[in-house]
């Protein structure tokens, strides 16, 4: 069975590493991008099933990235949600 693909957009490399580690253990195929701009590029290349994005990031923030992606993604196949570890639970 093909693994679901997650695009993780997070500017803090350590946090990115930890989340990637956890998601990989959960059986996902994880790709990482350090900011919204890179995330947007990677979205075009790898067509992920789900995007997990930080909100506050340099260059392009999470909301802007998701807005641009949902504009480009005509099929609206991809889900996106902001991640704010533990505080918004």
């Amino acid at each position: 069975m093909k693994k679901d693909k997650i695009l993780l957009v997070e500017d803090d490399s350590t946090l990115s590493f930890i989340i990637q580690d956890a998601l990989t253990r959960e059986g996902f195929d994880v790709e990482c991008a350090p900011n919204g701009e890179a995330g947007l590029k990677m979205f075009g290349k790898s067509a992920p099933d789900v995007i997990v994005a930080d909100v506050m990031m340099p260059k392009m923030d999470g909301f802007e990235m998701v807005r641009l992606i949902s504009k480009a993604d005509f099929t609206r196949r991809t889900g996106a949600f902001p991640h704010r570890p533990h505080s918004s639970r």
Partner: protein
Amino acid sequence: MKKFKTITIVCLSAIAIMIAANAWFMHRLYDTYKQQYIDKVESCVRQADIISWISIAQSTYNVDDSKLNLILTLTGDTTETEWYDYPDVDRKMVEELISAFAAQGEYDQQMKGKNFTIIDNVFRRQLDYAGLHPDYAVVLPPDSTLSDDSGLWHIKFTIDQGNTHLYNVYISSLGTEVLKQMSGIIATSAMILILMGFLIWYLLHWVGRLRTIEQMKDDFTHNMTHELKTPVAVAYSAADSMLRYYDQSDEARNKQFLKIIMQRLSFLSGMIENILSMSMERFKTMKLNIEPVAIKPVVEDVSGMMGLKADKPVDINIDIPDNLPVRADSLHLGNILSNLIDNAIKYSGDSVNINIKADDRSIIIADNGIGIEKGNLPYIFDKFYRVTSGDRYEAGGYGLGLFYVKQIVELLGWSIDVTSKPGQGTRFTIKFKSDEER
């Protein structure tokens, strides 16, 4: 933001309206003064005219009138002054004379014979008596004009409701003279305007500053939230991940995660220390409101409050004379006492006795709590210092209470001392005068 703009616009328009209104009133006042001035000049010309006509009348008709003679004599003598009060009845008579001339068609002819030396002399003298001292003044016949009258006022002197043009009068414009008369009004108006302007500037300046401070606070909070949240998020995620996907065999991963947690926590603690020390900076510039304060009610209030808050039995004995005043800031005095009493309650066993005693030289707060080790005593007033041995760490706090107490005590010009025996209790003594003064 919007409010600030509105305030600015309202203030600026208020000033603009005030300036416009002031300018308008000034202009009207200036016109009034100018008109008064011209009226005076015209009356001087009239006097000169009358006297010249009398001269003509006498030479043509040999008018034998003692009054006319007197006036004529006076015109020749510039030192005399009586003609200044030239009576209306005589003027009327002379005007009749002029009318008669005009009716006979002799006006133009007689004009030529007019002695402009007399007119000019009398005119100048008249100006002088009227208290007017223009730099330049001249009376000319109606058919001659000055080629260059820049800076001069030209007055066409007429009689018969403007039908007969008698003289052209040129006089240096008394702009400066008129302004001099108005100087008091102008000065006060200017001062009020300047004062208003300054007040409004000050107001805007303050509003602007408050806005900047507000903005800075917002930015600070925003940045701080991000800065504080990120390390918390990282440490949290690392710990969460370790618990959830615990793998004893993968020692490298475990170590790496623990290291991450440690790193972020130490970063956080540094940040928190910075924030706290920043707020402590305010002590340096803090102003106290020092006044006589009756010490007993303050102690009673604070003790009552602390006793209620405590989670164990607290017995506070207060031995302070009624109406004992000290010179202090009542708010900070209360804070000092509540800090000391709070410490006494915190660092004690299951219950605590506190004795508070004061006279006009000092106040003593003593407890029977757990006490402080001798080695720790010199540091207890240091910023962020906390006695960390044993279960005392449970008591909580930032290590700022006694630091604060010491800062305030020193700002008040007092001194604070501590003695303590572990297991028996601690005694704080605040002396109302510093050591140097005694």
